């Protein structure tokens, strides 16, 4: 562990910030941007922006079919990105990486192909009460179609999953256990390894919603023995419009294709088709080529800095943020204590609605999110209409926490 420690020493947030051009802009005259909404989407470093630009300027063509130099070059860049991503999450081989648009599409892909083919009426799927709508609604749609039963691991008052209840739910012999590795509202980091181990003991397949975990933590699918992992490029310094579904080879091979079209076929007649091999079977049509290449650059960027160094920095800024937030009279922060969660803080301010907090913060250039954060059932469980959420990433500084706190005091003053 000496190497990560060295990296941590070298982590310099002011240097990192220079990589993100948007962080130099003013939101209003004389009011610089303080971006605290990376949980919704992260900003992009110049390394990613320039890679995409260079690709479009120099190497762009449609991929896979062209027998000319530029097409071959474009294909090589696209497939190189797949390799980088495979390595980043510890996949056994690049063919287990399917490019999608985002986490949502990755989960829908599994529901509509694996789910439709292998689930029968009365089968159980286990989810959790803290899921983002993207890991809830696709299963509700499947349940409505197939008569599958959805059961939920409860969230306790401190924002943790109730694993004793989970063990009881496993008696229903679920076919699938799908869960967020990190909550986008509470920041809770769920014990993925334990959840997966228990699921496998009863023969269930597992799907990790890694939208919030992959950008911030080292995630290794082989260590976790995950069957599926879904995540988005845009939350991890990559472009929007590109996401990933990891699946174990034997699962992907058994699944029917998702969409029909070009690239996903081996042979087509007027009456029928045979499907291409993985991953192409799931990548019908011209994909988001430059975006995939951009995501490859984002993975390089994060890897060069080091995921350990990134967590260490987020932990430092996040601990400070929590400490300052809970000091403010009238502020209630939801979710576990800091050592069990990521740098995501959803809070309410007494007598001021989340929208008004967010609007007032915007006046000071502070970008936060307000609402139910695509997790309405969780908000219902917590008994609150909406929260304001501030989230932190590798480019955020303690100074920004101070500005956030100052902004919250302003909101209190206006509504006092």
């Amino acid at each position, binding site marked *: 562990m000496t190497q990560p420690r060295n990296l941590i020493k070298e982590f310099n947030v002011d240097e990192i910030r220079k990589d993100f051009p948007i962080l130099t802009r003013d939101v209003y005259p004389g009011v610089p941007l303080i971006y605290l909404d990376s949980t919704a989407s992260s900003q992009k470093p110049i390394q990613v922006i320039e890679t995409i630009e260079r690709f479009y300027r120099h190497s762009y063509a449609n991929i896979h079919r062209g027998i000319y130099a530029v097409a071959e070059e474009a294909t090589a860049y696209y497939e190189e990105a797949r390799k980088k991503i495979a390595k980043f999450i510890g996949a056994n081989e690049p063919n287990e990486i399917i490019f999608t648009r985002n986490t949502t599409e990755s989960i829908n892909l599994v529901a509509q192909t694996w789910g439709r083919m292998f689930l029968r009426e009365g089968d159980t799927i286990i989810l959790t009460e803290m899921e983002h709508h993207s890991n809830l609604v696709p299963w509700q749609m499947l349940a409505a179609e197939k008569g599958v039963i959805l059961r939920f691991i409860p969230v306790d008052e401190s924002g943790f999953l109730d694993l004793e209840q989970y063990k009881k739910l496993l008696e229903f012999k679920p076919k699938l256990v799908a869960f967020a590795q990190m909550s986008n509202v509470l920041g809770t980091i769920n014990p993925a390894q334990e959840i997966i181990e228990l699921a496998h003991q009863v023969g269930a397949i597992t799907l990790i919603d890694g939208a919030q975990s992959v950008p911030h933590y080292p995630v290794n699918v082989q260590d976790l023995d995950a069957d599926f992992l879904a995540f988005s490029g845009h939350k991890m310094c990559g472009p929007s419009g590109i996401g990933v579904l990891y699946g174990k080879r034997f699962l992907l091979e058994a699944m029917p294709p998702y969409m029909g079209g070009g690239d996903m076929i081996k042979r087509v007649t007027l009456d029928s088709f045979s499907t291409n091999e993985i991953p192409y079977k799931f990548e019908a049509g011209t994909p988001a080529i430059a975006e995939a290449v951009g995501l490859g650059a984002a993975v390089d960027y994060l890897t060069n800095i080091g995921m350990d160094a990134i967590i260490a920095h987020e932990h430092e800024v996040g601990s400070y943020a929590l400490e300052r937030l809970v000091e403010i009279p009238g502020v209630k922060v939801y979710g576990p204590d800091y050592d069990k969660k990521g740098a995501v803080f959803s809070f309410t301010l007494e*007598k001021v609605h989340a*929208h*008004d907090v967010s609007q007032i913060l915007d006046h000071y250039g502070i970008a936060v999110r*307000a*609402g139910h954060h695509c997790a309405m059932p969780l908000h219902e469980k917590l008994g609150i*209409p909406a929260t304001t959420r501030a989230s932190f990433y590798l480019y955020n500084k303690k100074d920004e926490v101070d500005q956030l706190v100052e902004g919250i005091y302003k909101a209190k003053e206006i509504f006092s």
Partner: protein
Amino acid sequence: MDDLYRELIIDRYKTPLFRGELNPHDISFEDDNPLCGDHIRIDLRVDENGRITEAAFSGEGCAISQASADLLIESVIGKSLDEVKQLTKDDVLDLLGIELGPVRLKCALLSLKVLKAGVYGLGEASDDLVE
């Protein structure tokens, strides 16, 4: 921002004049703003000439949505249902006396949407009602 949170809006948010429910009522409708979780219900009592004699709103949400509901209710008491059908986005913005971006506009117009959907007797509220 000082304009957005002018005194009138903060006042009517903190001490609304028309918050409550009317039971029985002649017209009642409720709806949510799915983007932010604002919720508004409006109850009306209407006389035989189709004129609103009493009105109240309930629900929860941001200052803009709640203050706008309170001001809107105040403005429609005594109006005929036909007059209410003619109300537009600009009428609400005039009541609030502020300009709003597209996201907050939805907060401000939720009450008008609910009111008009109720008055028209619709099953579902639509954004077309407040265009």
